[in-house]
């Protein structure tokens, strides 16, 4: 006589357990359980970071391009040196540059630390990059994106970011250098040990189709704690649309 009651009880308990488990999975996304207190161990990257690098780039020299990609770059440079706008292959200058040049704009950036991710906000184009530090792998077949898909981890006080899935029509670090869909970008960020208001960024590019070996470029940012980012609305007072000939225009007069 106890058996049916016991069975019913076990079924009820089992169902309750399954329901509780399902509810727990629904209400606890992967990063929500990581405590904010862990963030206290991270370095101080507060404030606004302004670029402090020349357009020639940095130590690291010219990119070691494969023959196909070198031909393209040489043609671009020849046109530019002659003062001809070689264009940048984009239909509009309001289209964001994507990785990596989204990090190399003459505008400032800020970093937000939250559990399981670092969020990078670029004033130019009001772009947001999400770097997931929760241990997930890079996606296996990422949809090509301007900023690609990024994961990261901390090595002491250095943030190491890996990005894949960058659209082929972005430029590689320097204006006029193109890349393939195989591009992988590693970024290493750390404060200058001699000056905590300087942030150093080291890019390491690998691309088996476009580069004969990994190419490294380094850049520096300077901190302004009291600044705020301002809006960047590209379409507002846009005097530099790209014409049908692919060249950037300069619109004078009343707009």
């Amino acid at each position, binding site marked *: 006589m106890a058996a049916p009651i016991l069975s019913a009880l076990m079924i009820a308990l089992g169902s309750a357990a399954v329901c509780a488990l399902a509810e727990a999975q629904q209400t606890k996304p992967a990063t929500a359980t990581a405590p904010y207190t862990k963030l206290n161990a991270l370095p101080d990257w507060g404030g606004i970071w302004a670029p402090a690098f020349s357009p020639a780039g940095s130590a690291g020299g010219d990119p070691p391009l494969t023959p196909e990609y070198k031909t393209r770059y040489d043609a671009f440079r020849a046109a530019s040196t002659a003062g001809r*706008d070689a*264009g940048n292959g984009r239909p509009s200058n309001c289209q964001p540059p994507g990785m990596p040049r989204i990090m190399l704009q*003459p*505008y400032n950036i800020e970093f937000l630390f939250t559990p399981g991710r670092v969020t990078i906000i670029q004033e130019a184009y009001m772009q947001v990059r999400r770097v997931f530090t929760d241990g997930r792998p890079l996606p296996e077949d990422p949809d090509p994106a301007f900023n690609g898909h990024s994961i990261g981890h901390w090595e002491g006080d250095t943030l190491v970011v890996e990005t894949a899935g960058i659209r082929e029509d972005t430029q590689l670090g320097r*204006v006029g250098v193109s890349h393939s869909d195989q591009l992988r970008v590693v970024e290493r960020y750390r404060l200058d040990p001699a000056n905590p208001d300087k942030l150093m960024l080291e890019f390491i590019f690998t691309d088996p189709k476009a580069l004969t070996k990994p190419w490294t470029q380094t850049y520096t940012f*300077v901190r302004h704690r*009291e600044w705020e980012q301002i809006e*960047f609305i590209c379409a507002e007072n846009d005097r530099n649309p790209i014409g049908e000939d692919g060249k950037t225009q300069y619109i*004078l007069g009343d707009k």
Partner: protein
Amino acid sequence: MRHVLEKGSVRATLLAVVSAVLLLTPGPAQAHHSGAMFDTTKEVRLVGVIKAFRWSNPHAWIEVDVPDAAGKPVTWGVEMTSPSLLTDDGWKRSTLHVGDKVELLVAPLRDGKPGGSYLGVKLPDGRYLGREPKKT
């Protein structure tokens, strides 16, 4: 005031960046668009009257009426960098007003049209912001 003006090495660094962007490149500057349209080896001095000043991002923008050889005013369109970087140089939204008499230093458009990339300004009160003209 939202932004504290910084003196010393940081300001010098950013000034150097803005100048370097305009001077060092034979090709396009590292801007959000190509800078190949400007001749960055030249500096043109514009003495005139402010017709318009727009404090917008990505580019602040100045229109200035400059008399031509015959004395007839020609409106020049001067493209500037971002308000964030200009603020570090001492600029504010209220720095220029319609009717102000100024001297602007620009890298001119290669195609000869009345336009250029901002390098520096002499304000109505005689103060300089940005690059000052070379003493000849």
